[in-house]
């Protein structure tokens, strides 16, 4: 398993590489779960839908024509199965601690009222996770530290990465610039890709202003 792109992982898994499959599972289960959550399914239904999605993918591994579209296929399949099970109206579990925890985190009504919006958010987050996975390790380390909760101070980040505090901002800007331009985010860019070539300058200006 040397090719860690979605394309490489799908090809390796289709050839029987279980580690590649495990990596696909690790990378994409959050997307499948977030789509299921957006539909407010009970935990039992959620588990069945998740299992169904992965069982279906197993037998389509060698037919996935465009592995970069894998995220969209997973999201669509999960959404369809949510619809199927919600129509069956089975096994409602009004007091499920799992659902309570979800409600506290995501707010149940917002997602239930606007499934499309929730789906779009889930797809964007998946695109960011994929883009992040394609960044150089140095960028991944820095961005992970910058987004950590609880926050890590610039001084500590500098120490951990052996980087002067003054170069953290500019490096962050360069890494975000790469993230914006990575293939995983390309499907979302459409409207704002134009003659504007000032992205790099703008990033530099933002970094300088830190």
């Amino acid at each position, binding site marked *: 398993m040397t090719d860690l792109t979605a394309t490489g992982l799908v090809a390796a898994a289709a050839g029987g590489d279980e580690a590649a499959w495990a990596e696909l599972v690790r990378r994409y289960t959050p997307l499948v779960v977030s789509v299921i959550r957006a539909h407010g399914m009970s935990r039992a239904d959620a588990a069945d839908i998740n299992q169904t999605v992965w069982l279906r993918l197993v037998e389509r591994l060698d037919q996935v024509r465009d592995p970069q579209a894998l995220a969209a296929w997973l999201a669509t399949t999960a959404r369809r199965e949510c619809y*199927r099970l919600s129509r069956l109206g089975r096994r409602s579990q009004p007091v499920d601690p799992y659902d309570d925890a979800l409600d506290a985190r995501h707010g149940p009504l917002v997602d239930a009222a606007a499934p499309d919006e929730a789906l779009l958010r889930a797809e964007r987050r998946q695109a960011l996770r994929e883009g992040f996975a394609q960044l150089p390790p140095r960028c991944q380390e820095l961005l*992970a530290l910058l987004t950590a909760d609880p926050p890590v101070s610039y001084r500590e980040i500098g120490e951990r990465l052996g980087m002067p505090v003054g170069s953290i901002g500019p490096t962050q800007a360069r890494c975000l610039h790469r993230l914006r331009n990575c293939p995983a985010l390309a499907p979302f860019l459409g409207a704002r890709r134009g003659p504007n070539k000032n992205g790099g300058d703008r990033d530099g200006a933002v970094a300088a202003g830190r």
Partner: protein
Amino acid sequence: MAPWPPGDDDALTVELGAALWDAGPVPEEFLTAARAAFAWRTVDAELAVAELTFDSACDAEPAGLTRSGGAARTLSFRSGAVVLEIEVSDAGIVGQLSPPRGGRVTARTATGPYDEAPVDEVGFFSLGAPPAGPVRLSARADGYAVATDWVSLS
């Protein structure tokens, strides 16, 4: 709608943080089940997949089709010329395989077979009530062998 991804570095960093850390906890059992699905890669590899083409639970009834009525859920699967139709109720599954060429039908959950039955001369078969979770039927008849898409039946 606002352009996305955000041009502002701080906003993008916040969104990236949410994507990386706030996906919410993925229950371990979900990951386990997803990883385990890989074991099915070779099990039915020689069978053609019969895709789910109709489910009365969520699809509109095809025009001109007359069903037996009642509360039973009906599903159709197709692989080329082979069609497998089932009716699911609390009592179990009754189904018809066409073209009728005898053979056997096996019903499985992700943990293994739960029932099997012979197919009669006009293609009919019956199976026990399906357990919870995704189920797949595989049919081996004279001249063809198919396995349905995984789908929750109960």
